[in-house]
């Protein structure tokens, strides 16, 4: 990869350092949990608050590192073509565009295609998701001083940091699938092979990596997932304590998450038509997302009758079911085949 070697080295080294710090902060936060369970308030709770703040800062620093790395990719990974091949490709693209409703821009030798990668690709999405959660959890922590709710927020944050550091570390091997796709481009190739490879990489660059929808559909969904996690903590706390403040907090996050989720799903629709045509409908990921949205809608409808006898438990249970549906939907990409499949 031309000129990216040193950037990758720095990215991995700085990223690993951040991951170690995150692990230490999460371990310290985990230690605070049993102490808070024994005695709420006081020094332990203050320490826990600053640890959450620290984790948030570290996740933000990781995100800045990701942004810098993507800037390096933008500058150095360019699909440049020799002049004769560019002319041939433009002829082919013009012919293809005349037959399709979604067109690919012609190759411009003065401005060859570059990758404007969003910050939630591959394992980076976990960093964004957990950063959003840490921010929302801190906000919720400050607004509600209910001990069980606060402990749940902490437990969920510790789990997320552990998953990020131990299972899906974005800094260990930066964007493996992306680099696997583009690395042949930078090896010596016969013109016909370069032509073929360009026609493979270019549509994906336009309709996936550089798509405008890439900047709206995934981040909105991850923000919805983050809000849903706080909502889950609120629902568990409301069932455990029976306090109206926990329910109010859960509902506040449910509203925001539902808004993000609906908007994210809606914006996925025109993008799917553009990128995949009509063949994606009833894809397992789409079906599970629909199921999650329906469960969420059910919660919002049922909540209208919260004050009615027996509804407190039902609404709280539905909230927990929403979180389970979210986990099921997210993990569906790993176990069910389809357009969204991870492997």
């Amino acid at each position: 990869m031309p000129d990216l070697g040193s950037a990758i080295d720095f990215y991995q080294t700085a990223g690993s350092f951040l991951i170690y710090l995150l692990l230490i902060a999460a371990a310290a936060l985990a230690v605070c949990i049993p102490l808070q369970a024994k005695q709420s308030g006081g020094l332990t709770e203050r320490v826990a608050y600053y640890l959450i703040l620290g984790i948030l800062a570290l996740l933000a620093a990781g995100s800045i590192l990701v942004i810098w790395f993507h800037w390096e990719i933008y500058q150095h990974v360019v699909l440049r073509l020799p002049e004769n091949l560019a002319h041939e490709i433009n002829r082919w693209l013009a012919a293809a565009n005349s037959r399709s409703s979604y067109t690919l821009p012609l190759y411009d030798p003065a401005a060859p295609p570059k990758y404007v990668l969003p910050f939630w690709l591959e394992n980076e999405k976990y960093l964004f998701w957990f950063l959003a959660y840490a921010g929302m959890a801190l906000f919720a922590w400050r607004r509600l001083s209910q001990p069980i709710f606060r402990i749940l927020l902490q437990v969920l944050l510790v789990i997320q940091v552990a998953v990020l550091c131990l299972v899906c570390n974005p800094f260990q091997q930066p964007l493996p699938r992306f680099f696997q796709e583009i690395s042949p481009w930078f090896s010596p190739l016969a013109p016909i092979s370069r032509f073929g490879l360009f026609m493979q990489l270019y549509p994906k660059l336009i309709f996936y990596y550089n798509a405008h929808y890439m900047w709206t559909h995934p981040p909105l969904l991850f923000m919805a997932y983050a809000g849903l996690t706080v909502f889950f903590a609120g629902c568990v706390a409301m069932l455990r304590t029976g306090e109206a403040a926990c329910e109010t907090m859960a509902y506040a996050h449910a509203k925001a998450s539902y808004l993000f989720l609906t908007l994210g799903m809606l914006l996925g629709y025109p993008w799917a038509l553009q990128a995949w045509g009509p063949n994606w409908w009833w894809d397992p990921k789409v079906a599970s997302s629909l199921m999650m949205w329906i469960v969420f809608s059910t919660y919002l409808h049922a909540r209208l009758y919260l004050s009615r006898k027996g509804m407190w438990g039902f609404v709280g249970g539905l909230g927990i079911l929403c979180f389970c549906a979210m986990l099921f939907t997210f993990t569906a990409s790993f176990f069910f085949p389809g357009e969204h499949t991870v492997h």
Partner: protein
Amino acid sequence: MRRFNYDLILILITVGILFLISLLCIGGMFYFKWAELQSVAPAIKMAFQEQMNSLLAPFLVALLLTLGLCIPKRLFPPRWLYTFIILLGLTGLGSALVWGWRESLFWMLVISAALQAMVLILVVSGRRLKFLCEGYWNRLGSSLVHLGLVLFCLDFFLLSRWDMHLVIFWISAICIFIGMIVTFYAEGMMEWLRRRKNSQEFTDRQ
């Protein structure tokens, strides 16, 4: 008390239908995996989509009928609504027998969209309605969200019929987005408007 039970029954019916649709979604997922539909010819995949759509259709009809009872329930007398729903159901059934379920569902969606648009116009024009959540902004938001959802379903039906169908999609997306903001944050909006009005009055006095 009677009104309360009527509202609750409608909500329970909606919840039940939504639950059945979510079961259908899960069933579809597992069938997709079990039948290995990812690697089959596009024609077989299309046949699966068609089959799932036809399975979903009765639930969608049920939702449309419930929506027809639920959203304008404070606008028209119940007797009128029952008559309307029975007529809508019979129209759907009749057109399904003559032209098939797809055509029938399309026309039901058009009629439902017209009904929701009428509700929205009446809310905007300030007719007194008593929805479950009181307040002008809540009523406006609820009408917008439900109109947007019906329009979104309608857009699906126009996918292969009209090249410009995405216009309907964007209208539906805007309706849903604004509707949700207005419904969920009605209180905050009212507070903001009140503060603006007060500060305006204060400035005027000075």
